[in-house]
């Protein structure tokens, strides 16, 4: 087995005096889809931000693709191949859909690739985005914004995709499209995925492994094939 794509060792993070991540160890093999589950406020979002570099980590190391990235600013991590779809989607509200996708091309800088055009496969994945490409992203529905946020991350051709609650506040038929997109990302684009999700039945349909957090620590992990969503449901419910 080759080295993991990302390997997090003893990572900690704090907001002022209150520590939210304690000694987090986590590794993802290439091509793996990992579901990160847990109740609200246990540190899932903080962990994603610490991996992306949009929150400083207080201790520990993150190695990505053979390189230590613990101290790198977010844009360098993005250019190294980490794509981010944050909670609340964070589309650029006054940019058009097309412009939002074009910002994602910035991640290709320094990889010897032309960052000229948004690749067609993103529109194949989300045909709706092509139809609304000239509209301002701030006026889109939640589902459309979610597709746009995923498309923008994919435009940077990441090897690791971080997603934070992709189904939150989204109607069921769009959830299906997002699921299909994530299956495509895994099978056709060969990306590694770390997805934070409380909707277990959703992630259980396409993830390989899960890890569960509680009080800023990873308390359990396992294989999705071996454990059912019901077995771990108590870790998410209040």
């Amino acid at each position, binding site marked *: 087995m080759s080295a993991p794509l990302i390997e997090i060792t003893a990572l900690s993070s704090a907001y002022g005096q209150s520590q939210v991540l304690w000694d987090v160890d986590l590794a993802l093999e290439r091509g793996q889809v990992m579901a990160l589950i847990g109740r609200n406020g246990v540190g899932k979002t903080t962990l994603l931000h610490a991996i992306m*570099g949009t929150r400083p980590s207080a201790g520990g190391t993150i190695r990505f693709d053979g390189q230590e990235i613990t101290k790198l600013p977010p844009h360098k991590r993005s250019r190294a191949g980490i794509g981010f779809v944050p909670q*609340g989607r964070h589309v*650029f509200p006054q940019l058009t859909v097309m412009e939002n996708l074009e910002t994602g091309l910035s991640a290709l800088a320094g990889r010897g690739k032309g960052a000229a055009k948004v690749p067609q496969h993103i529109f194949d994945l989300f045909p709706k985005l092509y139809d609304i490409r000239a509209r301002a992203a701030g006026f*889109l529905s939640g589902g459309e914004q979610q597709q746009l946020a995923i498309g923008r991350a994919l435009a940077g051709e990441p090897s690791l995709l971080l997603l934070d609650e992709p189904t939150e506040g989204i109607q069921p038929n769009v959830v299906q499209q997002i699921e299909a997109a994530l299956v495509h990302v895994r099978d056709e684009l060969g990306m590694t995925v770390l997805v934070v999700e409380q909707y277990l039945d959703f992630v259980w349909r396409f993830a390989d492994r899960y890890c569960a957090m509680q009080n800023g620590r990873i308390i359990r992990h396992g294989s999705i094939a071996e454990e059912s969503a019901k077995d771990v449901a108590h870790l998410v419910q209040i």
Partner: protein
Amino acid sequence: MDALFLNQLFNGASLASLYLLAALGLALSFGLMRVINMAHGEMLMLGGYLAWMTLLVVPGALGIILAIPVAFVGAAAMGGLIQSTLIRRLSARPLDTLLATWGVSLILQQGARDLFGAVGVEVRAPEWLTGSFVVFGVTLPSARLFIILIAALVLGGLALLLLKTRIGLLVRAVNQDRMMASASGIDVKRVDFTIFCLGSGVAGLAGVMLALLGPVTPNVGQSYIIPAFLVVVMGGLGSIVGTTASAIILGLFAALAQIFVDVSVAQMLLLVFVILFIQVRPQGVIAVKTRQLDA
């Protein structure tokens, strides 16, 4: 309408152009970095002195044309220096930035006093800028027409840059969501630096225009920086369209008020007008409205 009114209307348009050139840099860097550069007025001063020096070397019509790029580049370089040595290092602390850049402003003013003297220097405008046109009994000085033209060109160029180029796209992205821009692979600090240089350069250009109207003194920037701040505040903090609209409103207001009262009372009325305006419309001339689903 009488000639005085039309005359002041025209003066107001050229004053608005100066306000706009002085305020654009402030609006751009506030929109992006949420910091206020108190030394911005000194970029005008620097531009004025650079114009004077250019005209010493190359007198005549060519000199004033040459002064424009010289002042732009010189002020942009000074802005870049201030941004990279000071503002970047204080980025998360707006109050410290305010204080530190005020210090820079004082140092630059004193530096100019030591180098060029406290009295100020006079730029000899070329002949084609000292004349005037008479239209419908209203005298339009060429220098003021030139200022309006330059402001329009700068505004147009800036709009093209922001709306049609890759760097413009990145600037807008950083402006709207800094965290996400950074996570999308955009080097936000480089964008900050570029915009700060650009805004300082535009202020340097404004300095050339000031030099056409009066002497360049060490504190020439101070008399324009307050109206420029008012323009930015009333424009809606960081919006270019709002900044332009508010520069026009305030320029016309100040010039037309001078029909009835003297210059210093007009300045005071300007301040009162902005305070009242902000009471009625705290979001400024242009408010950014979108469907924000989450925080």
